[in-house]
């Protein structure tokens, strides 16, 4: 008994460094930022503000614009990216394809490029006299060059295209590794039963990838809600730009927080309030995604048990 106590004490002693680091660098900032949301700050001038920051949040057209932009990107980009990642993964999982290693590397390669470098690269590709416009012109698809970064729809298209290019390979690797864990027996059995490749994709691969699909969806959702580098770099415009992209279409929640802290008169209290809005959104979205996946898991088990009966 005494010995156990001693071991416990030693255990506590050993976790003190990690625990204190967690308290200092994780817990303290979380609670301090929560406190900040109740203050009206301008630099170091701080006054208690009660819930006024939250009231301001609901009257702030820029916040809602940032929210709208972020969700537009989320609902367009994440499905496109994950579907194509899944498609590439299942294609490259086929043992009959030659140069699989080469294709895998090629598709994964964009995700090791620096966020800033690839954003600038896309900006150059799509500039007024860039290679995309020149190609489209010489192929006679368009009569005059498209002004990609002056039109909100075109600019959002470029942003989504860039993000899909950068992140598809990254997600593909998750799917590939999950696919390689699926036993070949299952496919063989399905083939014996006369299932086509497409049938086995939908009835074997997809259900067994479900945990991985959930994981990538949650990660991509969180990533998109925190999206910063790409729109920030694509938006760099003018000497003293007043908008983030044409008609503010690149104004994401994270960029808005940055602007509140560093571009505008520093309002750390209000910036913290917007951060908490993101936190609540991430929590809600993740909850919904978990809910959906566990629901569908139940239906799958039901189906399977039925068919066994």
């Amino acid at each position, binding site marked *: 008994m005494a010995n156990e106590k001693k071991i416990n004490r030693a255990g506590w002693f050993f976790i003190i460094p990690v625990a204190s680091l967690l308290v200092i660098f994780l817990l303290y900032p979380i609670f301090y930022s929560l406190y900040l949301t109740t203050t009206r700050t301008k630099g170091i001038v701080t006054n208690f503000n009660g819930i006024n920051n939250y009231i301001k949040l609901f009257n702030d057209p820029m916040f809602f614009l940032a929210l709208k932009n972020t969700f537009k990107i989320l609902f367009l980009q994440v499905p496109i990216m994950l579907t194509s990642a899944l498609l590439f993964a299942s294609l490259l999982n086929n043992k009959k394809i030659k140069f699989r290693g080469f294709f895998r590397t090629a598709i994964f390669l964009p995700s090791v490029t620096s966020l800033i470098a690839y954003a600038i690269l896309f900006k150059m590709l799509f500039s007024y006299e860039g290679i995309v416009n020149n190609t489209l012109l010489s192929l006679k698809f368009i009569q005059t060059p498209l002004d990609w970064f002056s039109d909100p729809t075109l600019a959002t298209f470029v942003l989504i295209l860039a993000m899909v290019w950068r992140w598809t390979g990254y997600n593909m690797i998750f799917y590939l590794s999950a696919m390689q864990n699926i036993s070949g027996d299952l496919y063989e059995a399905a083939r014996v039963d006369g299932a086509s490749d497409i049938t086995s994709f939908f009835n074997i691969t997809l259900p067994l990838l479900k945990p991985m699909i959930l994981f990538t969806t949650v990660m991509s959702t969180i990533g998109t809600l925190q999206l910063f580098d790409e729109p920030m770099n694509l938006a760099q415009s003018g000497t003293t730009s007043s908008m983030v*992209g*044409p008609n503010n279409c690149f104004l994401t929640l994270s960029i808005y927080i940055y602007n509140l*802290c560093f571009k505008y008169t520093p309002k750390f209290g209000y910036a913290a309030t917007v951060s908490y809005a993101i936190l609540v959104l991430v929590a809600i979205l993740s909850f919904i995604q978990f809910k959906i996946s566990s629901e569908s898991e139940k239906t799958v088990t039901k189906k399977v048990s039925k068919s066994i009966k």
Partner: protein
Amino acid sequence: MKKILSVLLMALIVGTSLFAAGEAEATKSPITIWAWDPNFNISIMKDAAAIYQKAHPDVEFNIVEMAKADVEQKLHTNLASGTTDGLPDIVLIEDYNGLKYLNSYPGQFSDLTNKINQNDFLKSKVDVAKIGNKYYSMPFDSGVAGFFYRTDMLAEAGYTAADLNNITWDEFCDIAKEYKAKTGNYFFANSKADGGLLRIMLQSNGSWYFDKDGNPYVKDNKSLAEAMRIYKRFIDEDLAYPTNGWTEWVGSINNSTVPTITTGVWIIGSIKAASNQSGDWAVAPCPKLSASGTNASNLGGSSWYVLKNGKSNADAIDFLNTIYGANNNFYQDILVKNGAMGSYIPAFSGVNYSKADEFFGGQKVYDLLSQYAEAIPAVNVGEYTYEADAAVMANMEAYYNGQSIEETLEAIDAQLVNTIL
């Protein structure tokens, strides 16, 4: 054994930290300066430091180059954290942001009212860092606006210098339209998202987004309504060559895509980058907004600020005053070397300011620009210029699409008031 090891380890940790502390005490700390742009601010500051060191060999300098956004971000985080260790002695701050820092971090910047002679500098320039009757900045480069144009391209289209002198923005639009009809090319480049020209128009009318007391002045602001109307003309009549970002914007003049650029004097360096265009350029006063306005305005420009809690505060102030506040030769040198036009009035009568510039076909460019500079109306830029700019530009799209000016101004006002709440 373990005990011996841990004792040794402790001794090592304590020993090194003592050693580190001892070392920091040993030397006098240098004057630390933060700024951006290696070819302009940094290069000029290095020259200034070299001149000062000749008379004060014991003073060391630590000039740190960072991107502009990084300077702002580091300054904010350092000042907000309340620790003074990481602060520089002198920092470069853009004029639109001066009051923002002064009001957000009260007591952190040195009052320079009696340390330098404010009367030696352009009034429009010292006023951006004035709180009550105290002045906090050492004014640096002027952002006096000019209407720069290609004489060869415009002569081909049938325009002379007289056609472009002291015009209004409406006349500017008419010429742009006519030029495009004649040649098929655009007359100037502008990004729809950039409020730079709008601010030039406002200040030339002695107006801003804020009134003299720094309160939002949007709803009844006739100058703002007028400037927004001109911006709408740019769009409705397709007058501006669309560019996105600095590189494309400067590229439009360097590649002879457009024959004119209306902006701050600091563009001269970029104009001269296209050495094959030497002799083909000229400058005229920037267009005015209405008959009652002036043909003088400003865009951008920065000033030096001294941090009160810097380690070499007194040296820093003396350095700025000796070089930037009194050394006329220094201003003549940086004008030639860096194309930097200061806001130090005695320098305007110096020898280099009155030289004819071959690149500009023998025009005395800086002499003209310094005349414009002295006519710039001083405005209170307040501390929320970027907030106001964002509010205006965010609501412009609706205005372009037919929303009335009254409704648009009301929407801008509502957004601005909520933002600065």
